[in-house]
């Protein structure tokens, strides 16, 4: 029986395993050094905040794996010997495979800051990071977070939930403005401050200072300030977790290089999820996509290939979502922070300052290109359809109600949005 070995029990590895099981009778083993069972990394914050216990973040009950004949191994793969098709574990164990799927995810970026490995300094990616934060929480009077992205703001929310004052160092001049246009980004700046988070825009970390026990006691910034703190969170992005492949024959760049079929340069070796890097970006996507659902989709795809139906990875229209403290965010299609030369944008913000939408469309054809919605939920299915049908912006604005996904009885804003749109396009004309 063919032995499929998957390194990494995150969403991509587990999805691949589930689908291979559905399609075949092959022997499947999933390896991870992090946890025995699959859990949802996206829910790490809720454990620390007391919304859930760790067990609640496990999407499948523990009996699931045995019942589906998916073997689980807890161990760290140190080396991949592609000639003999063999894995070498940190504890000296070995395992041979017929086909190998690398799904090892990411690790937090560290940019060589002085003091970045001190006690009390941590990223927020693995379960062990959460444990470290938990350990350092008692007695913490202030925490400093470095890096204003999605994980940074989650970490800020976590700490605030435990009444720990937070200073949030953000390199950009406005929160996440590489992705969010000014209106949205400023809305989130305000919201962050409303939660009493000390947001420092346009500020870089210079150094983390240690106390006599080798624990972080303060940071210094490029504004010449020294901020006392006991915990430092490094959340300046993530990069593929592939150091263990250094000496292998598998071709890597920032991530494991794969073609559109998720195959590496070595036959029978595949890479999916956060750690995979496309030779060439697909459409407007980035070559490395570190989001939940792309990992899942790559898992679905590679399972087809491994079970004899060689399939290309063809993600559909881009979408994503996040939550900034109390404000939910969704996006469908592409809306750029700094409009592309073909792009025109329409922005509406609710007077309460916690809801807004931005619609991007082609300046010549009026084709609808994408939407950012904050504080209003929208239907994925509807936008996916409109993008495929290449609807124009007027159609979208006039049919927004069809796409609304807010719970029943919520205040509706379509009429106001339409009016705003009409008045804007009139003055522009």
């Amino acid at each position: 029986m063919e032995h499929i070995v998957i390194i990494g029990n995150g969403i991509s590895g587990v999805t691949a395993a589930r689908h291979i099981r559905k399609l075949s009778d092959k022997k499947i083993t999933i390896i991870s050094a992090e946890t025995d069972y699959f859990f949802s990394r996206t829910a790490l914050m809720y454990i620390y905040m007391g919304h859930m216990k760790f067990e609640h973040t496990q999407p499948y009950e523990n009996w699931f794996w045995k019942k589906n004949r998916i073997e689980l191994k807890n161990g760290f793969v140190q080396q991949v010997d592609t000639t003999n098709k063999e894995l070498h574990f940190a504890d000296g164990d070995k395992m041979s495979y017929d086909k190998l799927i690398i799904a090892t995810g990411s690790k937090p970026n560290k940019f060589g800051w002085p003091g970045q490995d001190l006690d009390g300094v941590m990223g927020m990616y693995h379960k062990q990071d959460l444990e470290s934060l938990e350990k350092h929480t008692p007695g913490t009077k202030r925490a400093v977070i470095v890096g204003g992205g999605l994980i940074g703001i989650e970490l800020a929310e976590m700490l605030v939930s435990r009444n720990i004052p937070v200073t949030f160092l953000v390199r950009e001049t406005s929160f996440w403005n590489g992705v969010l246009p000014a209106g949205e980004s400023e809305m989130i700046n305000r919201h962050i401050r409303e939660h009493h988070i000390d947001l420092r825009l346009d500020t870089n970390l210079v150094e983390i200072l240690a106390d006599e026990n080798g624990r972080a006691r303060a940071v210094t910034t490029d504004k010449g300030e020294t901020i006392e703190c006991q915990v430092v969170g490094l959340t300046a992005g993530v990069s593929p977790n592939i150091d263990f492949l250094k000496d292998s024959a598998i071709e890597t760049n920032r991530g494991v290089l794969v073609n559109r079929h998720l195959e590496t340069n070595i036959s029978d070796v595949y890479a999916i999820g956060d750690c995979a890097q496309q030779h060439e970006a697909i459409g407007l996507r980035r070559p490395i996509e570190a989001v939940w659902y792309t990992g899942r989709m790559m898992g679905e795809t590679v399972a087809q290939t491994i079970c004899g139906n060689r399939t290309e990875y063809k993600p559909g229209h881009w979408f994503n979502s996040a939550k900034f403290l109390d404000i939910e965010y969704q996006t469908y299609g592409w809306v750029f922070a700094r409009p592309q030369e073909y792009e025109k944008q329409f922005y509406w913000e609710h007077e309460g300052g916690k809801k807004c939408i931005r619609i991007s469309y082609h300046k010549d054809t009026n084709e609808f290109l994408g939407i950012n919605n904050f504080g209003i939920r929208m239907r994925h299915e509807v936008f996916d359809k409109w993008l495929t049908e290449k609807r124009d912006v007027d159609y979208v604005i006039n049919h927004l109600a069809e796409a609304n996904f807010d719970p029943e009885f919520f205040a509706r804003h379509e009429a106001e949005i339409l009016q705003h749109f009409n008045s804007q396009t009139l003055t522009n004309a």
Partner: protein
Amino acid sequence: MKHNVEQSMSLTSPAPTNLSLMQKFATFLGVTGLGILLLAAFNINFPHKALWLTISLSAITIGTIAFSYGLYGNTAEGIKNNGVFFKSISNRGFLGWIAGILLTGFYVVLYFYPEYLGLVKDGDNTGVIAVFDPLSRLLSGNPASQWFVYGTLYTVAIFAFGIKFMWKYRHNRYEVIRTGSVMFFQTAFAFIIPELMARLNTDTFKLPYYDLKNVWPLNYYNFEGYRIKEFVNAGNIGLALLIFGIASIFIITPILTYKYGKRWYCSWVCGCGGLAETAGDSFRQLSDKSKFAWKVERWVIHSVLVFIIVTTTAVVHSYLGHDTSKYWLTKNTFLIGVSVFLTVLFALIWIFKRQELKKDARYGAIGYLVIILAFVALHYTSGDSKIFLFKANDLRSTYGFLIGSIFSGVIGTGFYPILGSRVWCRFGCPMAAILGIQQRLFSKFRITTNGGQCISCGNCSTYCEMGIDVRAYAQKGENIVRASCVGCGICSAVCPRGVLKLENGSQEGRINPNEVLLGNDVNLMDLVNRK
């Protein structure tokens, strides 16, 4: 190393537990209110009962509301689940167990030893019950009973904790309006109207005590002999009430459930649901989400349903006559009528909805078969008063004791802090069972999943009081169409990615099992989802 997180979370309590001054005062106030009642229970005699009752109930209400204000007043609108699993009361800790034991004790006294509360059969009440006499006289003109005391406290609880709930979910209009509805139905329909109806009673005219929003089989006693007599003797009003009672089951309920799902009742109207949603809200996360629990649930709740159908049939059968010339409905016609009705119902489900049933159909069929066999057996083996080997009366009192008192009261509410807030609704309530079958098979209601947006975080499953593993559906892009869903809307509220929406829509595409989700290659989606 592996268990660090869990350990530190259970040993020390990292949640900010310091109460604000406001909350300390509120706690003091609430405890004082309860203390007055407790003192009364130990037979401290209060001179001005009306005054002390007012003080006590106001203190409890204001205390609860002030506490909630302290909790949520100064926070931004949004989800308020910080520290839920760190707090002893909401995580089956020491306080949770204490609360569970106290509540259970209260129910045992209430149901089985009301004399300890001061109930005196022929004579003036004493103790707590006496304190409630003035209010009872004001409403119905009669002295209080233990049920009046219970009803009052129940209403106060729904009211005060209802306000807390509204505060907590003030950003969510569905929750606010729904809670207002529950508070209204409890105060008006369950509490005030029946008491006022009792005022209409004279020596020659008596209406049975009737909470109009309680539908059989929740009020399993509705068709018992003494009540039917009272209905019939009360002339047109009585008859109207009786007809309303029957129409509630066969007409009103199916129509509303078709249009809106069982939520119209379970989380908008019902008193049991009302208490669970308000006072029980702090415990919703304790429901068991395992597949095993779901299996137990299906068996237990449908068994209770069969039990009450058999019991009610037997009870009605027992007081009907044999003689068609006296009254058209005789023992024989009634039994045949019930059998035919159930057979037709079963046949229709089997013919039109069999594909949707899968496993459950087998269970349903077996349960149904048991009933039918029971009828047949009963018809031929019984003398006047027996169904199988039991007397109708014994069946009735067994049901009343096991299900009516122990299950719905002692376990259902007493165990809130241990098993979660909807144990009764999920495992025991025969009304929920009927509405559930309707919801699963004949309803426009579903929870729609938003394409591929789910990140499998688990908030929805954790906070589903009915123990539905919502995530299991959401992460497959599949709509949630479950018999037990009471439509509380909390899964949708707590979802951080806007994945869930409670909706009434067309039947087509309502149930949509997916293997590959929206967002992936369209051809692949077609290929895999087709089969």
